[in-house]
């Protein structure tokens, strides 16, 4: 999946990927896509929940060899 910006959260545990995503998303314009790369499996459940709470759009997950990529589309400020 193509993303406008990427956030490296490899090696970080809950809640840091979510905390960093909340910070990073502020830099994006509405309509842009953020890719978050992580290796803590929790993100697969946490990111959809975060998107639901904040009103951003969860686009999906890609998992390859222990590396997890999740995609979030900024839909609101």
């Amino acid at each position, binding site marked *: 999946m193509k993303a406008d910006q990427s956030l490296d959260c490899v090696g*970080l545990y*809950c809640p840091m990927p979510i905390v960093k995503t*909340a910070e990073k998303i502020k830099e994006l314009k509405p309509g842009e896509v953020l890719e978050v790369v992580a290796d803590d499996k929790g993100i697969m459940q946490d990111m959809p929940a975060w998107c639901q*709470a904040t*009103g951003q759009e969860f686009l999906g997950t890609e998992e390859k060899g222990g590396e997890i990529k999740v995609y979030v589309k900024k839909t609101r400020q």
Partner: protein
Amino acid sequence: MAEKEKLTIVMFSGNLDQALAGFIIATTAASMGMAVSIFFTFWGLNIIKKNEGGIKSQGLMRKMLNFMNRGGSKRLKLSRFNMLGLGTAMMKRLMKEANYPSIDEFITMAHQMGVKLIACTTTCGIMGLEEGSFRSEVESLAGAAYFLGEARESKTTLFI
């Protein structure tokens, strides 16, 4: 978003592990756009005491209490397997190796994210603690009524 959803946490315990749980939930909730308040009471006050110490309290018993119960985010112990500090030291080392924030860093982070840190006036009064006993991130001292006022408006309230 209209009115922010609220989360109120009572931090009663002053143990490292429990403080960690409280701050993980608080910072996550703040990331999710919630308005978060943490009320520190009893042993929980140790988490927000200044690491440098220097608490001036009146009376022998209070002086003794604050001498033995010095507090500060860097002096918290595990609720289990403290083993005279060895267990706690090992846990802190594991957290560091995993690049995990310390309680100190969590307090700074929570404050920057707008989490309100409030110390309970009653326990402060009994234990002889003043506003100056606490680190600068602590917003105010308040009582049970203020907590209940916040809690009534909160969707989630936790007692840790």
